[in-house]
């Protein structure tokens, strides 16, 4: 075993967040964090012929905003990493055709944000790259189509359902010192607690989040008290209550804990059931709302545990349970 890789975690010393671009959908714009995002789209089609193309256009916007802030061109980036929810990670791969630099697509379902950030951080930390861009997106209609039912199909959604967030986020990581850095990461194990209800992702993913959190704390000898905020990606109201209870039963003191799915929307007035989900959920909350707070030194250190349900609709039809994963990244304001 490597000396630096502590269990499942790694401390990072030279990876900084240089810039970001966030684009959100209509419901996310109406939510409590609506004002935090760089751009919002008012229509799920966004002037395109299909939802898939709309998702790609949204992601291109996020990338352009991210690079424009630093006056960079597509060719100035060493490597691009991307993740989304579609089969063959369609959105990022089809966008990558326009990029003149190498591209790596990663898939971790809704954990795509933390997974791509962690992978990018490893490339920079190892000294191979200087500027790496990560891109993640999800779109309510494309996800509904692929994982559930046709968008206009009249199926009654259950109370445990989550709502796939519409949004795209691009982040530029760099080896040059900046106000916020990636400070540590924990890679997740794939956990399956024999849950097979596709309308109850929070319940399926909570054990994966628990595993990654416990590993993170154990590997780095930390607790909730070492963070100003710990967020899980998209466990939703129900899932985050389960996780809290699991932690309490293991005698872990839970403080400053929230879930991005509950932060992105106003659960009392918006019709999103248990809360938000999707790659964009954790990405929008982290880069739209939490990252600026770190930059302004309102918070010192946060932990983002992005959760992903790695289900395939085909396997679900074959009565298999849902494998889940969670990857954690710790972001810190530089002194």
């Amino acid at each position, binding site marked *: 075993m490597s000396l630096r890789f502590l269990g499942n975690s790694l401390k990072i010393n030279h990876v900084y967040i240089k810039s970001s671009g966030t684009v959100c959908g209509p419901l996310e714009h109406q939510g409590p964090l609506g004002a935090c995002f760089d751009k919002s789209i008012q229509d799920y089609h966004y002037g395109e012929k299909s939802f898939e193309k709309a998702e790609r256009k949204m992601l291109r916007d996020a990338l352009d905003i991210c690079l424009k802030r630093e006056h960079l061109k597509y060719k100035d980036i060493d490597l691009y990493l991307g993740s989304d929810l579609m089969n063959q990670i369609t959105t990022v791969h089809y966008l990558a055709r326009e990029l003149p630099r190498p591209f790596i697509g990663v898939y971790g379902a809704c954990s795509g944000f933390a997974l791509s950030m962690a992978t990018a951080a490893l490339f920079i930390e190892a000294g191979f790259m200087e500027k790496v861009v990560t891109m993640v997106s999800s779109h309510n209609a494309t996800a509904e189509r692929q994982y559930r*039912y*046709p968008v*206009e199909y*009249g*199926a*009654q959604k259950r109370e*445990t359902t989550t709502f796939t967030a519409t949004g795209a986020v691009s982040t530029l990581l760099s080896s040059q010192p900046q106000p916020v850095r990636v400070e540590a990461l924990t890679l997740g194990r794939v956990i399956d607690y024999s849950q097979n209800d596709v309308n109850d992702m929070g319940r399926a993913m909570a054990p994966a989040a628990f595993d990654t959190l416990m590993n993170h704390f154990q590997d780095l000898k930390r607790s909730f008290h070492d963070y100003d905020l710990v967020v899980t990606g998209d466990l939703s109201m129900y899932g985050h209550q389960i996780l809290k209870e*699991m932690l309490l*039963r*293991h005698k872990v003191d839970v403080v400053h804990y929230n879930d991005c799915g509950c932060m992105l929307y106003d659960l009392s007035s918006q019709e999103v059931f248990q809360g938000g989900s999707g790659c964009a959920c954790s990405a929008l909350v982290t880069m739209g709302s939490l990252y600026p707070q770190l930059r302004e030194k309102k918070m010192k250190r946060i932990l983002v545990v992005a959760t992903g349900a790695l289900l395939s609709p085909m396997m679900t039809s074959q009565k298999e349970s849902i494998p889940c994963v969670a990857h954690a990244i710790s972001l810190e304001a530089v002194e």
Partner: protein
Amino acid sequence: MDRKEYDQLADELKPAGHKIKNAFYAFLYGGVIGIIAQGVLEFFMNFYDISQEEATPMMIITLVLASCLLTGLGIYDKLAQRAGAGTFIPITGFANSMTSSALDCKSEGLVMGIGSNMFKLGGTVITYGIVSSALLGVIRYVITLFG
């Protein structure tokens, strides 16, 4: 924590379902669709002075058309979220399953999209409708042989 313990914990925290409320709304919405259908049927019978047997297909087509329009306008799925089985069971639900599938796959073209996907959800109703009617036909034939 083992899986059994986890299931217990998760069941304890599970958000309450609304079975009675759902059943009530399903009854209400389904009933209203029934009343509308009856009204349309009576209208055709009186307006064109035709028998119930002749007016029934016209009534069905009218309801299906209304359901398709509401699906296209993005209203039907919102009604269905509240109505549940109330909008799912009547023929309007079947029309919605076909229209929504067709709309969804419009972007993949007429042949590979709409043509092959229109029955994606409704197909199972047709398949098992035919299979069960064939089976019932056999049972009926056997009974008449002895009866």
